[in-house]
């Protein structure tokens, strides 16, 4: 009887391998610059990556369903402008109202995408390419002065809030940032939805086989609207986090974040063709991306190298993903022939 050594399922998972790579990478960089693996630096990475992370959660949901939304940065930009300006005009509001309003604006804009995708069955990439241009274009044509450098203080105050603050030797406050806590909260919610609800099953079903999803009786309309308003909502939240962190409203900066968000989601193991993806993976992907950019700075490497390194890692991660799939097929073959 031939003895088959089966690799335990855990080790084959993309998330596990990513985590291992991150640890090794962290140790490597730390040996060059010991500042890297300090608590202050790690919390800092967590804080600054929260914006990308928030949007990545939205992109992940869309990708799992087999679609692609490239309008989320435009939605974020519009939400940011509308929310901050409106609240400033009314001279009322606080950070919570800002988040709420931005989330609603984002979700509504996302509904436009959802409607076009569902009602007219148009390819999602093309639809969102169109709406991205429309949303952003309309914004720029309406606003005469799109930059806003003076915003109420409650934005920045929020970004300074810390959970369990510590003080280090130099008197510097550090700890788990409010932005990171928000990210964890939203991540938890979407994790529950994906794992424990029929809408979650429906999202995976759409990505797996859209025809079969229709035949099985899933409420496609509900699912599509949920997906696209969710990414709109997260984009809205991310936009206020941006204002909180950077203390200004900018018409273009968030637009430029698109590629990094998508890279992080793909790095985290979500398949571009749809049907698979996880919250843990996406978070790890985001943190990995920021670890890399952070480490390049700490190692004194010029910022021009950043896209090169990110590109190489994306290719590597997709390659590992493809390899894992083929290993799984071989394993199944072995099991089937044993039976």
């Amino acid at each position, binding site marked *: 009887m031939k003895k088959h050594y089966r690799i335990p399922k855990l080790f084959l998972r993309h998330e596990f391998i990513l985590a291992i790579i991150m640890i090794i990478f962290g140790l490597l960089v730390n040996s060059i610059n010991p500042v890297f693996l300090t608590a202050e630096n790690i919390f800092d990475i967590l804080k600054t990556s929260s914006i990308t992370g928030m949007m990545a959660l939205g992109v992940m949901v869309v990708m799992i369903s087999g679609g692609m939304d490239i309008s989320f940065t435009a939605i974020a930009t519009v939400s940011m402008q509308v929310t901050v300006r409106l609240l400033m005009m009314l001279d009322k509001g606080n950070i919570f109202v800002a988040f709420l309003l931005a989330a609603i604006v984002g979700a509504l804009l996302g509904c436009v995408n959802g409607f076009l995708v569902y009602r007219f069955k148009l390819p999602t990439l093309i639809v969102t390419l169109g709406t991205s241009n429309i949303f952003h274009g309309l914004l720029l044509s309406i606003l005469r002065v799109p930059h806003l450098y003076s915003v109420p203080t409650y934005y920045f105050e929020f970004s300074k809030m810390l959970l369990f603050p510590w003080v280090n030797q130099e008197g510097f406050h550090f700890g788990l940032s409010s932005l990171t806590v928000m990210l964890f909260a939203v991540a938890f919610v979407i994790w529950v939805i994906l794992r424990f609800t*029929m809408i979650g099953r429906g999202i995976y079903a759409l990505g797996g086989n859209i025809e079969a999803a229709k*035949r099985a*009786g899933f409420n496609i309309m509900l699912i599509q609207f949920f997906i696209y308003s969710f990414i709109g909502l997260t984009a809205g939240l991310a936009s206020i986090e941006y204002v909180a962190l950077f203390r200004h409203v900018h018409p273009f900066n968030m637009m430029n974040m698109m590629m990094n968000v998508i890279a992080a989601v793909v790095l985290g193991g979500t398949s571009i063709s749809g049907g698979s993806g996880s919250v843990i993976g996406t978070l790890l992907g985001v943190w990995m991306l920021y670890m890399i950019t952070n480490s390049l700075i700490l190692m004194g490497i010029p910022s021009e190298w950043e896209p090169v390194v990110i590109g190489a890692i994306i290719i590597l991660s997709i390659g590992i993903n493809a390899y894992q799939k083929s290993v799984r097929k071989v394993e199944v073959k072995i099991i089937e022939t044993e039976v």
Partner: protein
Amino acid sequence: MTEEFCIEMKNISKSYSGVEALNDVDISIRKGEVHCLIGENGSGKSTLIKIIAGVVTPSRKAQITINNKLYNKLTPIDSMHQGIQIIYQDLSLFPNMTVAENIAINQLLESKKQITNKRRIKEIATRALESIGIDLRLDTLVGDLPIAKQQCVAICRAITCGELLIIMDEPTSSLGKKDIDYLFNIIKTLKSKGIAILFVGHKLNEISEIADRVSILKDGISLGTYDIKELNHKKMIELMTGKTLTVSTYAREYSTEKPILEVRNLSKTSQFSDINFTLYPGEILGITGLVGSGRTELVSSIFGLNPADSGEILIDGVVTPIKKIRDALKSGICFVPEDRLSQGLFMNHTIENNITVTLLKAMLNKAGYLDIKKVRNVASDWVKDLSIKTPSIDLPVKQLSGGNQQRVVIAKWLARNPRILILDGPTIGVDVGAKEEIHRIIRELAKQGLGILFISDEASEVVKYSHRILIMKEGRIVEVINSADIFETDLLEKLG
């Protein structure tokens, strides 16, 4: 409503934009029986089963009685609540979800509960698997399973909600003999549980094995339901096609002195082994066998697309090594592939371009530029010779009918003046009239001295349109026989 029938449907008619797919069809199904539905392509089988599943509504008022309940209109929900489930030909499974999730999904959706429960999913799946006696790991992703096992998952899913009738649409089309036996065992188990099966198929030996009763459709009309004991292959074919037995009219009209192609001991690991045959100029050799018997692999290796591991190929008595397509082309061998859409034609290109694409080198003028006039003339000539129906040779080939598209592919290769022409499934997806035409063209070519090999799944086609028949099974040639010496029903039995 008679006691013995659990489903009774009368006066079913359906038309799509004026074309009548079904005309006044009656069908009744007994509790726990295996009922087979047969008919040629286009006879209305798919439409009928979709009506039973409630997915399609009849065009005129019909009488549908299920379990003694009369329905004016049948919706998918009604059908499902009555315990009718349909397994489509593509299985409609989710490859990215586990076996357990796929099996449980119908029941979960029916219960309308929004929260999923992993334990409940496991329960539903285990129960379904156990009731048929299948052993599958619950957490395997369905996309990683072989087709036969995927079908088991589809069946388990169907039985979670299908207590009355499970409709299977051509379930054996991509299965080998072993898997088909496995499937039939499952069907027998379902039968013993009182679940009726409506099995749509067209492989007559399978029907004979599994059916209790058979309903025949032809051109949207029901030709009646027969007990399997009243039928044999001969009668089924006669009913399905409306024609009586076909006898070959291809007498030997060629000389057997010098073979144009001879294959000796040709083998390729896990595809075919020890292939020996000869082909004479002017002869049409029909190659047939079940799916997976290695026919396409064999002819591909003669064409150099899939070079053999060992053995010899002799052209005009001379050993010719064929290791790549260029070698085959040089020896005058041309290959018309099975999948004309993706392998035979450039769908968006014009008829003219498609016909002349392999000849471009010969179309250069002295300066090395393409002689446009020459190209156009060559293409036009071929369109005329093969009677390709088109108003202009500048039309993209995707606008042509299947039969005409096939003629373009054939023209493309004939333009090279081959000596040996290989055709893999030349009339797939082509209607009956065009089929006759294409074989007429092939016969003309044979009369001009070409040696022709063609592969077909249809016993009637092979018997009718070839001189000799090569029967392949599991990578080997099991018999070579003159087409005049055999009836298609006997050929079907040999294949089974």
